[in-house]
């Protein structure tokens, strides 16, 4: 049986304080990913990401959030016809919807939302609290990815 292909997308701008959580997550994953896993950082989700999503079985969107409970939230996400596509940036649900319409396939998907303190300050470092949340999110994800390969 072929290996399941999994894409991890870390979203956010590392120059905007805790908005960089997604990129920091990808950086921390490093090269030690299980077979079949691929990780990429991006500022925001864009329409062409639909091509990458059409080529994998599973995708995990990692982003900062000021709305979820600390330290992080892990939820499945599906294609969302109401998802916003009002700018170059898409929501995960909108991107999944686009992928389905254009390529007739939608990967299983989850959002790992890591609790941020602030995301508007021009600063390259994560806040202390966000750093702690990041570590817990990484531990959670590595356990899921390692012990439960099916996530």
């Amino acid at each position: 049986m072929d290996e399941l292909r999994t894409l991890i997308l870390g979203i956010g701008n590392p120059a905007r304080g805790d908005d960089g959580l997604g990129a920091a997550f990808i950086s921390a994953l490093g090269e030690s990913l299980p077979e079949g896993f691929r990780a990429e950082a991006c500022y925001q989700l864009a329409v062409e990401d639909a091509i990458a999503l059409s080529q994998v079985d599973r995708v995990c969107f990692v982003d900062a959030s000021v709305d979820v409970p600390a330290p992080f939230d892990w939820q499945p996400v599906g294609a969302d016809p109401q998802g916003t596509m009002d700018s170059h940036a898409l929501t995960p649900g909108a991107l999944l919807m686009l992928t389905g319409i254009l390529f007739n396939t939608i990967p299983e998907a989850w959002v790992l939302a890591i609790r941020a303190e602030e995301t508007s300050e021009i600063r390259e470092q994560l806040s202390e609290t966000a750093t702690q949340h990041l570590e817990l999110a990484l531990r959670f994800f590595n356990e899921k990815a390692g012990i439960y390969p099916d996530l």
Partner: protein
Amino acid sequence: MTDRAAPTDPDIPVNQSRSESRRIEIDPITRVEGHGKVSIHLNSAGEVDEARLHIVEFRGFERFIEGRLLWEVPVIVQRLCGICPVSHHLAAAKAMDQIVGVDQLTPTAEKMRRLMHYGQVLQSHVLHFFHLSSPDLLFGFDAPAEQRNIFAVIQAYPELARRAVLLRKFGQDIIEVTAGKKIHGTGAIPGGINRHLTLEERDRLLGQIDELTQWCRDALKVAENYCEQHLDMLKSFASFESNFLSLVREDGALDLYHGVLSAQDALGHPIFAEADLTRFNHYLHEEVKDWSYMKFPFIQSLGPESGWYRVGPLARINNCKGMTTSEADLALKRFRAVLGKHCGHSLAYHWARMIEVLHCIEVIARLLEDSDLLTGERVIKGVRREEGIGMIEAPRGTLIHHYKVDEHDQVQFCNLIVSTTHNNTAMNRAITMVAKQHLNGQPNLDDALLNHVEVAVRAYDPCLSCATHALGQMPLQIELLDAQGQRLQMLSR
């Protein structure tokens, strides 16, 4: 979206008592980059008095740059914007070229940078046209909201949407092979570039050119047909005379990477043409208004009242004498045959943008055939200077980076003038016109009417983004200050 009386709100037009004023807000504007807000001010008779576009401009980045080493600036500035990082990368690199004493790059370096830039403009324009503006154009401004969105476009025109995604991907692939990475690329460095194209990369891109060029022709046709079939609307919808500013090549041809800074009036008469780009601040000044974070640039010799101008695709198409590629040049001639030599219609931005798309793919094809991309000297140095000004035609218009660097290679001064700022007055004028035409006498606002205002803004493809994208939070803050700088009101979410 709110429709509310604001009797105690100090943000009201001058010359009106607060009790006479009523304010309608459209918040946020959809399908433009980032978030802004439009406030429409009605007078006591319920007529539109003035409409204002409020943009939370991304300030403070200059201080983020100060103290950085000149070598890292072209990389770091890409964090300014998640939408067009390559424009900032190249504008900063061009400024730093001057700091390291380089006025003329090697042919290899310039062509690699041009390839990167034209790839970026291509992917930016394609996305704007197909995914942000097409719902308005294909279904009409008055179409139901549930239809006037990109998913409806994709359902109705799946092949069009698929091509747009693949054209975007092609542009991103060009950025990746020229800049080294999709984001935070390092390809342009002070004095040149740090990599060649490999034969494999070149052939992979070149192999797609014929098909993609045909798609660009088809896309241009969509814009042409739309404009030709809606000429009356183009002439009446947010159409006004203005000055236009852009870079043009020394011989007057359109050039997105480098040239002479040229301003023309509404009749095409030259206002100035300056080859020495370091003198730009002799020509352009900025006005501050107490209701907007964003400045209002104007041509100094004309003053703030009549010196405002437009930038971007329409300005470039109006200002240039011709295109350097054959098919785009024919497209330019068709544009002028229909709309005239100096067109002031806001909606003509869409047509101009798609002429540039065809031009970009033609330039990319030409560059990919050039062996200088595969070999040749990549970087040079000259006599060190303290100051550098980099200017480039970004997708949305002229982008200016200005730096001063000390003897320790540290940036001591940084000033950035971004494309959307140049268009500030024009966008306010456009939405005021549209609001007056479409909202007067209609006290019960509906989504279609409000969308007319947004359509006018979208034509300019403003980048309101500050590249932050946390789930559940898009930054928006409105602050009011009195003449003494005291805060009267602040709204944030």
